[in-house]
């Protein structure tokens, strides 16, 4: 698939989705876009997520195959690496936790440079992807948590605290939330990276651009709503609260921009279980990360351990007995 196809296909899909909402809102389909689709999306999200995780979980883990990135536990006087070569389930769990919270493997990233005279290969630490990914994910998380304000009454104190921290700079009215802007910037970076690094551009599919465009559009419409074309926040909250209390009602006068925003969020939610975004759940199940490196100390059970045909010693001796005897190698049957 060419770059152009992947890129524009994803872009026009998102543009098309936006057009769909705008037309829909024009045709007074607010209930559809404000209630039916969000409900559906959330349902698909949870059912889909569960389905996928169950599907993974139903495939057994026949072998204990951690990727060991540190010294094994062996002789007592050799210091072993609990984190990178965990011997117990506890440390394996810590390893996964750090993977999830700090993206440790990504932190290792290097970049290869080949100098042809020589030749000389050099490897430089390259933490940009790690930084971009960390910033992206955490700002995403903060934005998501902040949105709890719309679904709770009274607003929990941790959300209020988060808003305080997020709005620390107190720029403008309403106060600027750093996370939203950072999210937009980080997504843009991830996108630019994909477009400009030749290898990455080569491997990217529409499915790689699509979530990026969607998230960009979500962040962008969010920012527009908050700072530029203000929507009726009271009405929005009325709608969102009605959704969580299962008494859906659509107040009048919420601008079209809001429907674009919530529709794209719905799309992202519904798209999630069918896509690579499932890495969120998958990382916890990854056998190269979540298993302890203790295979020589504790037997791992393979539920389908096959019965295989082996070449027994008896068959072997039958074939070679005379030669073995001639060579003075002991045999079982003379």
């Amino acid at each position, binding site marked *: 698939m060419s770059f152009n196809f992947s890129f524009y296909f994803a872009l026009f899909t998102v543009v098309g989705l936006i057009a769909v909402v705008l037309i829909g809102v024009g045709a007074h389909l607010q209930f559809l876009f404000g209630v039916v689709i969000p409900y559906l999306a959330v349902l698909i999200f949870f059912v889909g997520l569960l389905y996928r995780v169950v599907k993974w979980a139903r495939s057994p883990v026949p072998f204990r195959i951690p990727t060991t990135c540190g*010294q094994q536990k062996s002789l007592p006087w050799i210091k072993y690496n609990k984190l990178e070569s965990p011997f117990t389930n506890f440390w394996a769990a810590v390893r996964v936790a750090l993977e999830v919270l700090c993206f440790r493997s990504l932190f290792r990233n290097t970049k290869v440079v080949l100098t042809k005279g020589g030749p000389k290969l050099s490897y430089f630490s390259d933490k940009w992807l790690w930084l971009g990914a960390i910033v992206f994910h955490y700002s995403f998380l903060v934005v998501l948590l902040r949105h709890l304000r719309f679904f709770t009454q009274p607003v929990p104190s941790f959300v209020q605290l988060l808003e305080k921290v997020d709005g620390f700079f107190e720029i403008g009215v309403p106060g600027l939330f750093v996370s939203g802007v950072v999210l937009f910037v980080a997504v843009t970076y991830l996108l630019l990276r994909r477009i400009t690094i030749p290898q990455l551009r080569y491997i990217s599919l529409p499915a790689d651009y699509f979530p990026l465009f969607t998230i960009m559009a979500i962040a962008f419409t969010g920012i527009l709503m908050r700072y530029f074309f203000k929507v009726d926040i009271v009405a929005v909250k009325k709608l969102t609260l009605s959704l969580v209390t299962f008494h859906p009602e659509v107040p009048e006068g919420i601008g079209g921009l809001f429907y674009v925003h919530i529709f794209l969020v719905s799309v992202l939610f519904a798209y999630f279980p069918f896509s690579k975004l499932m890495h969120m759940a998958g990382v916890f199940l990854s056998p190269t990360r979540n298993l302890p490196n203790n295979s020589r100390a504790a037997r791992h059970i393979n539920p389908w351990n096959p019965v295989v045909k082996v070449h027994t010693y008896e068959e072997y001796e039958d074939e070679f007995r005379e030669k073995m005897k001639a060579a003075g190698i002991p045999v079982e049957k003379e």
Partner: protein
Amino acid sequence: MAKLPKPDELVKSIDYTPPEKPWMETKPEFIPGTYGYGVKAKNLKILGFPNQRDFYPSDEDWQLPENWKEIFLEGMEDRLNRFRSFRLFMDICVRCGACADKCHYFIGGGDPKNMPVLRAELLRSIYRRYFTASGKILGKVAGARDLTYDVFKELWYYLYQCSECRRCSVFCPYGIDTCEITMMGRELMNLLGCNVNWAGEPVANCYRTGNHLGIEPQGIKSIFEFLRDELEDITGVHVDLPFNQKGADVLFIVPSGSYFADPGTYTMEGEFLLLHYLKEKYGFTYTFSTYASEGGNFGLFTSNEAMKRLNAKMYAEAKRLGVKWILGGECGHMWRVIHQYMATMNGPADFLEVPRNPITGTVFEHAKETKMVHICEFTADLIRHGKLPLDKSRNDHWVVTYHDSCNPSRGMGFFEEPRYVIKSVCNNFYEMPENTIREKTFCCGSGAGLGSDENIITRMRGGLPRANAVKYVHEKYGVNILACICAIDRASFPPLFEYWVPEVDCCGIHELVGNALVLPDEERGVRKRKTDLRGNPLKGFEDEEGTEE
């Protein structure tokens, strides 16, 4: 035979920028020198593997059965259901590209399909087409593609340009292990009789004769005795070589590479000396086996069933011979199998004892289930307890670096034991640059059944990152030998270094141990060692004739 370009020409050809044409639309060229010969019918027959015919990858027609597509897809579904790793790794890659420049075949070759992510995508695109809703409905837009004859051949070509080294897995944020994907892919290839002969023949040989090379019992014995005689010339000791002996303390299993060709044989001789010393001094007893005369296991590069079939001999023989536990020699992939697969596949080994070093009293708790100990663990323990008199200066003619072999590194976490042993027996030791050792180590380029002569271009390309790091320490510290604990390494480094950094040699760790070990006669001053195990004069004896003629 393929024409291998000169090193500078080969370097010149490396281009990391992928072509304009999208990858799904390009086909691989089967250039001689970049792939191994196909498996022979006779080898498939020995194992009872499907589609028994001589396989020629360069042929247009691969003589696949009529229903090859069904076999492939059914095999795939079966494995998706049996291996969580496979299903998960098919699903969660975000194509972030972190693994892209981590593969030695990509670094030394620049073929974009040797980026681990794209290697995996070759199979993933088929997965999406036949096993995901989006791929079934949207097809190409969802990154899916039909399994065609060309796609199948392309997949084969790149599955056999992965040495299953797991380096990519270290860097992936989700631990996606392209090695694991390659293993699955190769199992599928084997359902259709499409192995390389360099893996298929060792598996068949090992199945029948107990070792990869197909050496019969009397042959093994005479090879061992030849090595013993060589060793006797150098050291004056006559090593006891019991075969298939019952009731010894340990069964010692080495890779056949250790007794087949140098420089592996020097490692074997070093191990002979160690065993001899322990026997003389402490009454330690050991036996070799002709039936289990292979530590390595090319089944690992073929299918999990093949691996299990070969591995079964180790426990079977240990049981028959009534030893206490098993000692394993220096071999990389052998130890991945022993460490991560053996107990699961062929255990429990409840007829053996928890390994205990009778000389030091150390109980190898970490191996209490498999009952198998790596000789470097064993030797490190002996040295730590001061049980071996060592004269480091006997390795002074060597400036040593250490290569972490892929499998013990990323499949076992085996880093300190060998280093401890090396530092105990050598005065001159230098590490290669940090990003090329330990868990980030580079493959020799010839692992996983890729080590055949006809595959020379792929091997020289894939070996470039390792060789280049060796060159660096050679130029900086004067390193003239690389120590390693892998038989495939010891077979593949000599030609690799010849090509990239001709001044450097390769050895196993126990060769160095053998050089340094002070034998009883030497301790008493009755005899003096004048050459190393290769017959090279030791420092201070350069003018004298070596004892070896």
